[in-house]
């Protein structure tokens, strides 16, 4: 390990804190993005988009469809109690979906599916010394392994969030039509008064943040794996939990910033 060139960013080699490693990986990935390394890792990015994004479509669609049906009922219940009217269902449902639910639910699903598999994959490479092998060949493992996964993670999270919001809203509309006797036209007309392009932009900002942070956390834990298969297992658990907490905290911070801006 001592023979490795010192100018490289080498996470997980010394006794450093998780934060240091996380920041090192982040810096390296952002650096690669600024330099425009996209073409060199183009194929790998596409592979990762297929694995992370396309592979997560079924679970995201199923889960958010049910979430959409629930949200109409919940909002109806609360608004009936608070404002004694259910005529606001379209507006409040759409607001809640575009600002919170349609982003948080897919993000948490992506954390547990993509985050866990990334940590397991990178951790497996670490404990079988494939990452050491890359280093000996003079290849920067962060740029080679993490960067494509990071770019693919951002892209798939954005795409999946759009899909999830559409599915959630669609199911919420179906529920409202079937159960609360709204007409489709009436629903969409009310909806337009409550949500606008700024909500969509806010949702994309949130999705961008979650999509950027999840692969970085997952890969950090993967790089820090040691102790064989058991180490990979515990790293996977910790990575999912840390990424979930990171998503929840980011959600709070961004929501707060958006309320300040509004």
């Amino acid at each position, binding site marked *: 390990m001592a023979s490795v060139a010192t100018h490289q960013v080498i996470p997980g080699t010394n006794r450093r804190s998780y934060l240091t490693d996380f920041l090192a990986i982040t810096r390296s990935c952002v650096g690669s993005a600024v330099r425009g390394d996209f073409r060199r890792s183009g194929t790998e990015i596409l592979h990762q988009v297929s694995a992370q994004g396309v592979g997560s479509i079924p679970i995201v669609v199923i889960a958010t469809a*049910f979430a959409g049906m*629930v949200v109409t009922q919940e909002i109806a219940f609360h608004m009936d*109690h608070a404002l004694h009217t259910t005529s606001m269902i379209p507006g409040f449902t759409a607001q809640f979906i575009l600002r919170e639910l349609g982003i*948080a639910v897919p993000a948490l699903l992506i954390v*547990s*599916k993509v985050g866990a598999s990334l940590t*397991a994959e990178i951790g497996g490479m670490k404990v079988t010394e494939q990452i050491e092998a890359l280093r000996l060949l003079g290849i920067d493992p962060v740029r080679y392994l993490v960067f494509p996964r990071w770019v693919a993670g951002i892209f798939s999270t954005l795409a999946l969030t759009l899909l999830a919001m559409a599915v959630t809203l669609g199911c919420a509309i179906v529920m409202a039509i079937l159960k609360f006797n709204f007409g489709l036209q009436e629903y969409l007309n009310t909806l337009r008064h409550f949500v606008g392009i700024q909500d969509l932009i806010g949702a994309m900002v949130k999705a961008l943040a979650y999509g950027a942070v999840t692969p970085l956390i997952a890969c950090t834990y993967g790089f820090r794996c040691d102790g064989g298969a058991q180490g990979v297992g*515990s790293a996977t658990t910790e990575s999912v*939990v840390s990424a*979930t907490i990171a998503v929840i905290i980011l959600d709070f911070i961004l929501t707060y910033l958006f309320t300040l801006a509004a």
Partner: protein
Amino acid sequence: MSSVLREMGSLALFFKTVIHASLQKDRSQGGRARLIREQIAEVYSRSFWTVVFSGVFVGAILALQFNAMLVDYQATSLMGGITASACIREVGPLIISFLLAGKIGAYTAAELGTMRVTEQIDAIECLGTNSIEYLVVPRFIAIVSSAVLLLVVGLLVSLGGSMIIGSLASGVNPLQFLASIPRFAGLGVFGAGMLKSLAYGFIVAGVSCHQGYTASGGARGVGRAVTWAAIYTNLYIVLANFFLGQLIEGFSILTEGLF
């Protein structure tokens, strides 16, 4: 799709076996109680602070969102009730059980999966011990009971978080916040939250034990079991959330006026 259905069927049979074994008399002279105590301690030491921490933020996020909705109607005095009701009935159990799925579920699946692929479970069977009774039942009981307790803790903490944000962001007096809770969140709401927590506890425990117990294919198989334990748990929780919501609503219509 067919693999998902096969998985669900296998899980249902596993549930039946485990619950049957849990209800049987303990044949190990109090050994099971000790195992359960150990597992509960393990689960708590792993997840208590995580749950508390995320609970605060979940409450805070909800308070911010409802504040944005209610402020146009000058109805922020109702924020406490609405946030409490949404936290307890819906969002709190959902998000915290997602977290438990990642934390306890993945750990249990990894542990049982490692025992399976290193043939420790086969060894236990060869010694004439029922591996379900010895390995799965204590974990199952411990996870169900502590998941329910952790969810309750998380819900209470999330109320605290929403109260803090309510008073900071929208100037709702904490006393006013508390006073508006009974209007929205009566016994029925707490009952619904408890029912959901119990169901999610069963899902987290059952799915993670099942994935670990049926793991195969070496270290890679354990990794797969861990990942799928988290995914299936989240999926089943969202599905259960919908069906329980329907059930609770039907029940509340039936018993309207009783409470």
